[in-house]
């Protein structure tokens, strides 16, 4: 057995395989499939200050090797999470990481302050990259000054590990990464979904109620790999790679490009056991290539 432990800032993860926000609920439904404590961490569904119903159906379109979603951050709000969901998942022996959203800097702060006291939420992931909300969300993540402003404001009120999740819908990802690192991010996760669109030609209508939505799945993996690699060369903080990871080989590619950990997203929908298989596959790869630890292959890409 190779050593799968990795460090993100000052947190130790038992393995580098975590699950992406919005693709694993709050974990409760997935407990029917396997022991969630086997995961390195769980990034729970995006939280906002108030209840959000999200967008109207249809919110999903299948695309070549991927899918578009326009869920629109449906969640019952941070207080509901604290009172009714956190008590059911806090016993898990894995990192529970809250995905924080807001339409103003004040809302991001309000949500974050409520999370400060939750002992088992060991980190937050600041989502400044959601393409599915009109105000806030991605708007913060596509310009450096606003990304800096929100990261800086959260850094001042949050003492634990702060992960900032970047949007791929920018021209210069390295610049964004440097900006949030400078504003106090302890780690950077990327990528969120790519803005996309699907059309029903027969009906001459968009498939999503919102017309545009977020693209995920294997279709976005090459873009994600490129961005992780660029960010790896731009910042010092650890990177959590996301985007179209379906199997262990995909995960290894993200480590080689510079990720210290990875998030499994859309793959969970097709194979609820995908993340467990990826953990096994990483171990198998490390053994086959005689590496003692997964840390040896982070950024090991030979160019």
């Amino acid at each position, binding site marked *: 057995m190779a050593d799968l432990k990795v460090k993100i800032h000052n947190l130790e993860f038992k393995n580098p395989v975590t699950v992406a926000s*919005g*693709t*694993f*609920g709050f974990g409760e*439904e*997935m407990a*029917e*499939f396997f022991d969630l404590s086997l995961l390195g961490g769980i990034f729970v*569904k995006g939280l906002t200050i108030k*209840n959000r*119903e*999200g967008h*109207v*159906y*249809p*919110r*999903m379109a*299948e*695309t*070549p*090797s*991927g*899918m578009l*979603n326009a*869920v629109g951050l*449906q969640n019952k709000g941070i207080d509901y999470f604290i009172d009714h969901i956190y008590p059911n998942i806090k016993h898990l022996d894995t990192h529970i990481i809250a995905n924080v959203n807001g339409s103003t800097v004040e809302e991001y702060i309000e949500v974050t302050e409520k999370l400060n006291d939750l002992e088992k939420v060991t980190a937050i992931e600041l989502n400044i990259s959601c393409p599915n909300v009109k105000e806030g969300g991605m708007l913060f993540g596509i310009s450096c000054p606003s990304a800096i402003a929100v990261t800086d404001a959260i850094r001042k009120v949050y003492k634990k590990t702060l992960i900032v999740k970047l949007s791929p819908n920018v021209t210069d990802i390295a610049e964004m990464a440097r900006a949030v690192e400078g504003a106090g991010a302890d780690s950077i996760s990327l990528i969120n979904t790519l803005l996309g669109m699907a059309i029903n030609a027969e009906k001459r209508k968009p498939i999503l109620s919102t017309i545009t939505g977020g693209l995920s*799945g*294997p279709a976005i993996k090459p873009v994600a790999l490129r961005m992780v690699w660029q960010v790896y060369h731009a910042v010092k903080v650890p990177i959590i790679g996301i985007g179209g990871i379906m199997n262990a080989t995909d995960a290894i590619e993200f480590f080689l490009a510079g990720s210290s950990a990875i998030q499994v997203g*859309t793959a*969970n*929908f*097709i*194979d*609820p*056991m995908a993340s467990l298989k990826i953990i096994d596959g990483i171990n198998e790869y490390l053994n086959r290539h005689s590496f003692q630890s997964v840390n040896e292959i982070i950024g090991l890409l030979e160019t």
Partner: protein
Amino acid sequence: MKVVADHKVVNIQYFSEENYVIQMESPVDIPKIKPGNFAEIKVDNTPGVFLRRPFSILDVDYENKLISFYVKVIGKGTRYIGLYEIGDQINLIYPLGNSFTVSDKDRKVLIVGGGSGIAPFILLGKEMVKNGIEATFLIGGRSQRDIILTKEFAKYGDVLVTTEDGSLGEKGLVTQHSVFISPQFKYDRIYACGPDPMMKAVAIIAQQKEITCEVSLENTMACGFGICLCCVTATQEGNKRVCLEGPVFNSRYLKWQI
């Protein structure tokens, strides 16, 4: 726990080019399946098919570990599943979703199915017989070739049929069947599954007659087990997941534009 496993195809019976029943053998004991439960089928090696496809569980044989589905071809996935060969493996996840209410207070129920919406009603019919409830099945389709499994339904109750072209049973839509205007129309509950317009029309009739009506929705799904929030329907209590809080809902709980 859910079953997530490769199942061996043991039989595919075509009723027409667009309708077939596929039967598979489970490698494990099949857990208790309730009428209305569905499975997510993985369709491998089909260009353009990325996500699993949801199908109601048509029938189960616990002793021989057999599970079957009725599939109506509407696109790539539904066509391809019918092209599997005997012995091929198909990955299934089940049982998913909630189920129809079976109440021992009911004496007579009407079960309305259109198109592939008849699929959950074999298991429901069996439950009716078990509970001594008298069931009437009303089955609708475009033409005679769409009306299948009537002999099977007849084991569990009376069978009424409508076709749009009049090639079998009464001509017209299911909701135009004479049963609805019959003076003997007296049911304790109505169940409906099929295209949305059909379910809405049935729900309106049920509402007028003040009969409880349960419908099973077929929203498009990405996961099928509650984690993506893509499949929601608007209800009196906000958006609910069709795959987890549904697919069966009391029609009055839904915020349908009716």
